[in-house]
């Protein structure tokens, strides 16, 4: 197998356009109309590239609700006016993070020059009971779920183990994730939950699965996101595009059931995905200027800090307490609001993170724009850690000097 470093030496891939729908609940939209909107916005941002330039599409969706479980990919791309070979990726909540990775592989291998990677999900149009059937489908079905565990329950088991292992950590540290991400989401016009919350709001909210409260859990969401991944030649041929270089991408999988893993206080797939992404990008956690991490439940953001190497084991609470990952901190995390406040339309989440990275790196992030970031990292997890993908983007188009490098 080619090493991550060797893969990095293949021709470069760039993100030159990205768009997403608002995330929220949209009874008037379908999974196809949402996806078409995301495609329109991605193309409109891509400096002259059009539908006719797209060679391939890779789309991620879990298929919540059961709508068009088979051939879901062509069902959305044809609707959106893209009659190109389409591959649908299913890796639960990491579906479109993997779709982006597949697009990068296609471009770097030379098999395609312009690939649209995206994702979509509609989660709010079914009854509460039906939705509950679908929420746990990415947990381990035959054993974990048959203990009566929900997805929140599995992450709550991680949270309980984390509190037990790291005596200094408290439930308030989970709440700090909610406070930060709600504050960030309130600045993002695409976010689902655009309101702030206090530490007490979060800690005192109704318990969902002890020790996690309602504010420690992301919402169910409708939405779609799409990004255009192109070769360095295409990027160079379209000087009007705002390009961000795909510096590294890493992925890993693991046992689907939490009980099958050696640790409950880390997500080993995240660690391994991050290692190969850093290696391919020839960079390290210290070089990351900002990150979008998979905070489906508050504990997941703490684990992400540690799995991604932003701090040592057990030190995630300190990062939150000291404001390191606040929007004005040294390493802003989930400036978009994250899954917690921006929303978590399962199949669209990974691509949505890349949209945020691209916007921040190319100066399109509006009111929440960070001060000239150069390196952004996206971290997307499937289930409770059965799949993970980490993508590192760098500022700068093809042939341009990346400042500071």
């Amino acid at each position, binding site marked *: 197998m080619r090493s991550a470093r060797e893969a990095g030496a293949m021709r470069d891939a760039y993100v030159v356009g990205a768009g997403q729908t608002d995330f929220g609940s949209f009874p008037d939209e379908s999974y196809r109309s949402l996806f078409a909107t995301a495609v329109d916005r991605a193309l409109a941002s891509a400096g002259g590239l059009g539908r006719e330039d797209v060679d391939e599409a890779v789309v991620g969706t879990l298929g919540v609700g059961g709508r068009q479980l088979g051939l879901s990919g062509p069902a959305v791309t044809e609707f959106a006016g893209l009659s190109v070979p389409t591959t649908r990726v299913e890796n639960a909540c990491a579906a479109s993070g993997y779709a982006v990775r597949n697009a990068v592989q296609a471009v770097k291998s030379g098999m395609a020059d312009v690939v649209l990677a995206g994702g979509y999900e509609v989660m709010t149009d079914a009854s509460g009971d039906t939705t509950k059937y679908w929420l746990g489908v990415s947990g381990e079905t035959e054993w974990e779920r048959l203990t009566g565990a929900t997805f929140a329950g599995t992450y709550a088991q991680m949270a309980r183990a984390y509190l037990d292992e790291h005596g200094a950590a408290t439930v308030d540290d989970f709440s700090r994730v909610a406070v930060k991400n709600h504050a960030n989401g309130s600045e993002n016009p695409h976010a689902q939950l655009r309101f702030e919350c206090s530490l007490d709001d979060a800690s005192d909210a109704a318990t*969902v699965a002890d020790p996690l409260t309602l504010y420690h859990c992301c919402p169910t969401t409708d939405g779609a996101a799409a990004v255009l991944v192109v070769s360095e030649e295409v990027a160079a041929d379209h000087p009007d595009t705002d390009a961000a270089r795909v510096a590294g991408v890493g992925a890993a999988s693991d046992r689907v059931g939490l009980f099958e893993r050696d640790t409950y206080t880390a997500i080993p797939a995240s660690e391994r995905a991050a290692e190969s992404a850093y290696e391919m990008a020839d960079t390290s956690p210290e070089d990351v200027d900002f990150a979008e991490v998979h905070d489906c439940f508050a504990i997941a953001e703490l684990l992400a800090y540690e799995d991604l190497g932003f701090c040592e084991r057990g030190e995630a609470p300190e990062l939150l307490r000291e404001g390191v990952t606040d929007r004005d901190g040294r390493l802003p995390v989930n400036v978009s609001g994250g899954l917690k406040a921006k929303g978590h339309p399962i199949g669209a989440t990974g691509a949505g993170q890349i949209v945020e990275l691209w916007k921040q790196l190319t100066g399109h992030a509006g009111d929440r724009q960070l001060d000239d970031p150069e390196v952004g990292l996206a971290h997307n997890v499937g289930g409770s850690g059965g799949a993970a993908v980490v993508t590192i983007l760098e500022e700068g188009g093809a042939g341009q000097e990346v400042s500071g490098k």
Partner: protein
Amino acid sequence: MRVSGVGAYAPRFRLPAESVEAALGQFRARGIDRVAVPDADEDALTMAAEAGERALDAAGLEAVEVDVLHLASTTLPCEEEAGTGRLRSLLGLGEDTESAQFGGSTDAGGAALAAALERDDPTLVVASDAVRGADDEALGHAAGAGAAALVLDRDGPGRVAGRGSQTTTYPGSRFRERGSAETTGLGVTSYDRQAFRETLAGAVDELDWERVDAAALQAPDGDLPYRVADALGLDTETVAAGCVVRNVGDAGAASALLGLADALRDGAEEVLLATYGSGAASHAFRLVCESDVPVRATLNGDRELSFAGARRRRGDFDLGTPEGGGAYVSVPSYRRTLAARHRLVAGRCRACGALRFPPEGACGDCGATDGYEDAPLRERGTVETVTTISQGGAPPEFAPQQARTGEYASAIVAFTARDGGGEVSVPVQVVLADEDAPAIGDEVVAVPRVLYDQEGVRRYGAKVLPADSRRRR
């Protein structure tokens, strides 16, 4: 055949007579102070497994050594389908076990025992019932639950010194029509008493006996066994010594056998056992203990329920399982895993010897795909991590259970292998009865329970109880 061990089980929950009276304005079951109420995930089969496991343990017999299984019940979850098939698996009896099922009336317990006495090989007799009647009838007020089991072999200490039986014809005193969940009766008091007295006394009359320490008589309520005592020449203390109905309620096919277990546990050496079922039929036995017959019985109630709490556990207030979609485990794929689900059988990797649960797929330690040797786990384990699933948060399959019992916990528990050491993590549900969920590091004990119903097919599996919440007796 002789009795070598006895097991008994009644659910921990009790509904007191005064709570029924407070709710309904009446409690018409005579001689009953409280009735046992199965938890929402208990039924006649899980109770049968609890009693059967205790009987095997008391007799010191391995499950695989049992050659014959007799199951008696009037309230198995399915009217058609061999309940012995499920019970065999829950208990770990071999597939070459010969089994027979007895039902039709509450005399089934005696019929199952009588048939077992004709066998030549180690036989497990289990009687289990969760009786249910209308809330405005005495029978509904008396309805209790419990299970009793006897191990019979050639050299147990309990000698069956005699037996008798009687079949009379008394329609209408107690019956349940096909498809109905509730047993009822015409309520012709004198007629019912006559049927009971004539039939049961007729069976006992066939026995040759002078005195007994206890008389374990069928007890649909706490009145009928005492009414027949005179006809049998028994004093009330002797009847009371073999009667648990006051604290358990009407346990149907298990009723008299529960009385037997209780009497033996209290040291009775000679016991008269008589079962009765409406219609009417009766079986009577005289048991002489040549030395102590080992008994393992868990009959005490340690949790009191309100009337609403009891009916809620029975499922009177919820709408059942919501319509589906999403995660689904087919019956064939569920069946493939029964040894692991019912009896916590893990696997030992043929390549590296590590334990794996469930025992399938590549080894988690060495990655080999050489397969596994069966490695049964101990019933006690240690909590590795745990959460409590709040009310309303259960997956749909578990929504009815949560509506009926309240919050439960979901845990990952480390169990050790019975042989050869090693430890493996198993995801399990923790059954809570108003106590807090166990903490990391706490001990829990595996119990057989209903997981959920889907497509009309009940799924059973191991859950755990906090070890410090487990009843002693």
